[in-house]
């Protein structure tokens, strides 16, 4: 895998081989996280700043925990208590943070493409922690890792992604990641919550969750974004739950060994019944736990292992046996 400079999209990992490399590295960081002292000195002296223009608890804490377990220093920036309120532009904020000497910037923004812009302005590595409706690559990686942990692998698996696909950056990254590793993906949603144009997406679609459920290994529920209700994309949350919610009755239709995933935060009683969220088939807690290890792997790849600087120790060492030659001899 070529050295990784930024992680803005799942596609930055260069397909299945690069994704597998992250998952393999995650195995090592899961082991680190299970220790009595879950910390390694790998990124000592590096600084990771989080730049969050949108509210987030789990992603932000997860990145900070990951950085700390790698012994990196962390800086945190949230819009509600910062110079953005005084009108500072994204570019000026990014350059200011970089000037403080950070090595990586974790960006979340409500506009698609914001992390790409930041990456073009700064010398630090940029990690996309969710941009608008576009992508959320570390979420997709932790989902992959969780599926691999529970089911052994992705190849040949059938995954239903259910809910508000249109507005979901998680769905976009997940579809890329799942299909890259050989899984089949079916999007299940009312027509109003599917992207208007699915050309080029390697997916099937369905409007009938009951018909899809018995045939899948994974049902991935997206958060029903209540704020979208104002756009009248679904008649009511109750109606959405009746047709697309994973109720206790519906969960009974799942095949043996199938798992239920959710990126959080959950709306219990809307897209997922409270009882279903707590079933052994539910991986929601695993996803959060694996999230820290996956983000350690990503930060390590960006700041530790991804460098392509010329090795100095051995390559440039002079042979101590060789006498110093005079310029004339060298020329001859």
């Amino acid at each position, binding site marked *: 895998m070529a050295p990784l400079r930024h992680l803005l999209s799942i596609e930055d990992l260069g397909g299945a081989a690069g994704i597998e490399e992250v998952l393999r590295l995650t195995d*090592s960081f899961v082991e680190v996280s299970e220790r009595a002292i879950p910390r390694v*000195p790998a990124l000592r002296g590096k600084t990771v700043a989080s730049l969050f223009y949108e509210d987030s608890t789990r992603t932000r804490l997860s990145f900070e925990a990951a950085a700390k377990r790698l012994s990196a220093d962390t800086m945190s920036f949230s819009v509600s208590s910062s110079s953005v309120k005084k009108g500072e532009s994204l570019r000026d904020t990014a350059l200011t943070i970089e000037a403080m000497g950070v090595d990586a910037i974790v960006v979340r923004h409500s506009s698609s493409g914001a992390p790409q812009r930041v990456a073009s302005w700064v010398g630090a590595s940029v990690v996309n922690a969710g941009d608008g409706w576009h992508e959320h690559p570390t979420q997709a990686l932790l989902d992959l890792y969780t599926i691999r942990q529970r089911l052994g692998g992705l190849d040949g698996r059938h995954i239903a992604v259910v809910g508000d696909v249109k507005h979901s950056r998680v769905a976009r990254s997940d579809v890329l990641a799942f299909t890259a590793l050989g899984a089949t993906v079916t999007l299940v949603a009312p027509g109003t919550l599917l992207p208007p144009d699915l050309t080029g997406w390697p997916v099937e679609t369905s409007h009938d969750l009951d018909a899809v459920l018995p045939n899948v290994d994974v049902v991935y529920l997206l958060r029903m974004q209540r704020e979208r209700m104002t756009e009248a994309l679904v008649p009511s949350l109750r109606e959405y739950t009746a047709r697309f919610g994973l109720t206790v009755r519906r969960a009974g239709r799942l095949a043996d060994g199938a798992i239920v995933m959710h990126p959080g935060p959950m709306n219990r009683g809307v897209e997922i019944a409270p009882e279903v969220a707590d079933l052994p088939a539910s991986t929601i807690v695993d996803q959060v736990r694996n999230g820290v290890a996956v983000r350690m792997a990503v930060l390590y790849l960006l700041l530790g*292992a991804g*460098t392509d600087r010329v090795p100095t120790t*051995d390559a440039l*060492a002079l042979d101590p046996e060789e006498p110093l030659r005079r310029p004339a001899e060298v020329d001859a």
Partner: protein
Amino acid sequence: MAERERRIAPPYGGVFSARTRVLEREDLHRAIWRMAHEVIERNHGLDRVEVIGLQTGGVPIAERLAEALQAIEGVELEVGRLDVAFYRDDIGLRPVLPEAVTHIPFDIDGRIVVLVDDVLFTGRTIRAALNALNDYGRARAVQLAVMIDRGHRELPIRPDFVGKNLPTRRDEVVDVHADGVDLGEMRR
């Protein structure tokens, strides 16, 4: 040969080409039996001894050594596996990736840990391993067993049990494998 050696030995990414066979398969096994006896002699038995191999070259040697130790003393011995990538001092200077997951299935507090590696060179891997071990507990003592000591130390580190002392040039490469030990160099 170990993937790590391939990556860090100049020329980088080259192919190992063997020049001399320095230990035959039988010599390798004799050395392991002798080292096993030395470990037992030094520690007056195996009551407090744990064996940990360094990923990945040290692990097969550690397993053989443990086999010999068990055969001699008639005790059960589990082998730990330690990867030191995250403790190396050249992170950021070259690509450093773990080769396998660390697995230490026992508590090292108060135990005598015998670290096992295939080749001892600059000593930097062992320095990293000592730091890593520290995060798993406080061993009563740490001893070092290596199949080949090829010299060129850059740190004050000395092995306790050695299969063979092998004088080398810095640019040479030592390859320990199941059939013996080869000395050679990396070629493009």
